[in-house]
């Protein structure tokens, strides 16, 4: 338990390769590393008196810390995660939107609640295994463009940035795995990466919604597929199973490929249309948060409306309170309410918000 000279860092460890290498790199860099695995949810609700789950990943994280010679703790953050992340996830789907729970987990669970734990143990630093970089106190994209996770980090408190360490943002995924092997972390080096939302392990988000809202929730009840003009073209089995931009599971018999273009929760309608109807010329987002000094209306920025999308150029046309509107230089497809809008300047993350909707026509600069 030799304390590192660079101060104490609380590392969020999932038991995966990225956060394990994060901890290892920080040990090598001379930090006093403390590992913590957050227990966020439980699949074992049906087993009373046995509230434990995701034990394997917790055990892997513990073994990694043991190999690295640093302490490891398991933090029970189930109730706050349930409130801040899972409840919101369900609420958003019930409104016909497509939430990103990872964004709220970063905003509330990792970079607020976990930071409070860091405070309590006198850790000036917090670290995660995100593929993003801190440069001069500002958040940047990770070096590995294919892995870049900066899109999920726009919501964190700006005040936390100065305490944040993201060492694997400098690496590619392949390099991370190589580092894991070099560090002797065989437990995690070749782990298969999960693409699922952690609390929806089989990808069946409707089951999570049903568990919280009941199987007869309106979001899971049958409704109509309609065209934009209201023409009924089929029946669906619950709008929460659909996302703007989705092609799978739509009625056939059209000349062009059809996409979900809108979800009308109030009437339980899923609107479908050809690609042209999926394009937006403007985007509106709320819950706006800046990680740098706020840009001004009229400024040009780059933006992303979903993870792994290529950045699009846009002009800020309006900022009012926590709401922003941008005009896109080129139309962007599948702007889905509930997803994140993240603004960039090159690799620098400026900030972001939660997409409220798209504008089919080009918005006009107010001033």
């Amino acid at each position, binding site marked *: *338990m030799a304390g590192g000279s660079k101060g104490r860092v609380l590392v969020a460890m999932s038991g995966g390769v990225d956060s394990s290498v994060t901890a290892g790199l920080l040990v090598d860099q001379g930090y006093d590393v403390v590992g913590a695995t957050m227990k966020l949810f439980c699949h074992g609700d049906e087993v009373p*008196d046995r509230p434990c789950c995701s034990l394997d990943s917790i055990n892997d994280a513990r073994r990694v810390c043991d190999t690295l010679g640093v302490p490891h703790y398991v933090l029970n953050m189930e109730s706050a995660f349930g409130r801040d992340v899972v409840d919101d996830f369900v609420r958003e789907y019930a409104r016909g939107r497509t939430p990103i729970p990872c964004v709220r987990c970063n905003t509330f669970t990792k970079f607020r609640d976990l930071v409070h734990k860091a*405070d*309590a*143990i006198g850790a000036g630093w917090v670290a995660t295994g995100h593929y993003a970089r801190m440069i001069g106190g500002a958040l940047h994209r990770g070096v590995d463009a294919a892995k870049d996770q900066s899109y999920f980090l726009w919501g964190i*408190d700006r005040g936390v940035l100065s305490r944040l360490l993201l060492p694997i943002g400098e690496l590619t995924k392949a390099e991370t795995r190589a580092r894991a092997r070099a560090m002797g972390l065989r437990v995690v080096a070749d782990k298969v990466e999960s693409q699922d939302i952690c609390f929806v392990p089989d990808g069946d988000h409707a089951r999570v919604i049903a568990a919280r809202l009941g199987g007869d929730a309106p979001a899971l009840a049958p409704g109509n597929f309609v065209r934009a003009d209201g023409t009924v073209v089929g029946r669906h089995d619950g709008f929460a199973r659909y996302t703007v931009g989705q092609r799978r599971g739509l009625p056939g018999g059209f000349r062009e490929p059809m996409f979900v273009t809108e979800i009308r929760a109030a009437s339980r309608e899923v609107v479908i249309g050809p690609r042209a109807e999926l394009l937006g010329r403007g985007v509106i987002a709320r819950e706006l948060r800046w990680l740098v000094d706020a840009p001004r209306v009229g400024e040009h920025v780059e933006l992303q409306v979903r993870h792994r999308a290529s950045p699009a150029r846009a002009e800020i046309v309006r900022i009012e309170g926590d709401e922003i509107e941008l005009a896109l230089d080129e139309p962007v497809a599948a702007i889905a309410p509930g997803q994140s809008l993240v603004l960039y300047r090159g690799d620098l993350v400026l900030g972001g918000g939660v997409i409220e909707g798209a504008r089919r026509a080009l918005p006009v600069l107010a001033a």
Partner: protein
Amino acid sequence: MPQTASDFIYLDHAATTPVRQEVLDAMLPFLGNRFGNPSSMHRWGRDARVALDEARERVAGALGARVDEICFTSGGTEADNLAILGAWHRRRAERPAVVTSPIEHKAVLATAHQVAREGGEERIACVTPDGVVDVADAERLIDEKVAVVSIMWVNNEIGTVQDVPRIGAAARARGALMHTDAVQAFGKVALDLSTLPVDLLSISGHKIGAPKGIGAMFVRRGVQIEPLFHGGAQDRGRRPGTENVAYAFAQATAAELAVRDREKEQARLRALRDELENAILAAVPDAIVHGLKAPRVGHITSVSVPGIDAESLLMALDLEGIGASAGSACQSGSVSPSHVLAAMGVRPEIATAAVRMSLGSLSSEEAIRHVAERFPALVRRARDFSGLAAESAALAQV
């Protein structure tokens, strides 16, 4: 892991204790050339059988029981299961109910739930805000439908002592059997089964300096229970399976030492515990000691510091080499909300702040003084840090 014990302060004796040297010395021959099976007829078997009988006698002696009333188990959990389920299975036709309390160890609570799952009825007595089972309420629940009453002697999270003699008398008066989980009481409070109205009692080895994996159950002569396991005739059929002679011997040795040292050690630990509590309360005036006004054993304290969750404080303590615990841990090693404090009506945010420190053989005066100084210092640091964090968060929201 600790390299030298003196650098680290172990304050979790209610979780487990190191094996005492005398105990280790006493058990080692049975892991060596005295390896026989007590059921064998040859010299090796005879030797093991004599040793096992001696162990049983010595445990009986330590409890004020008769030799045939002692049954060795794998530990406290098995003893609790065997006592409650064993008694209930035997009597359920006429007496379908069990009575217990909400502050029991999970080994008892989950067993009572099992009774309910098997078609019985579980009745849960109230506890006072001080963490003591309400005797009048327990008495109210005990009637001719009750097979067995199970009330712990000493609560493992906060150290409160329950009025087992009175509840036992009430059980007896209504024809119910009285079981008590004495895992945290044995070696800590005076306990003589020759005079107590108790029919079944559980103890554990590793809380008193024996290894993990051994415990014992007292079954009063004449009380019939159904076994949980099925097999040979070992232990009068109550607990089939080849007996663990080495561990039974360890249990016997540890039990005798615990009884011998009890008064002196409890007085020593009580003085240190009180000193620790007073130091914390003086430095952190809003700290809450759970069960403070109730009769308590001398070696356990449960303290909540408002605004600092137990996880954070336990991490901070551990990083300074001080090992304490929250009330109950789950399998992952994370802290789960305490059912004991919840039953006492403690508000959730205070309950999730509760840190249990339990003193024992490794608790020197010097160690406790160090903790008395460091605990408040860590509280101050956590408060200052989180105060700053709250401030910056508030600014960010403006």
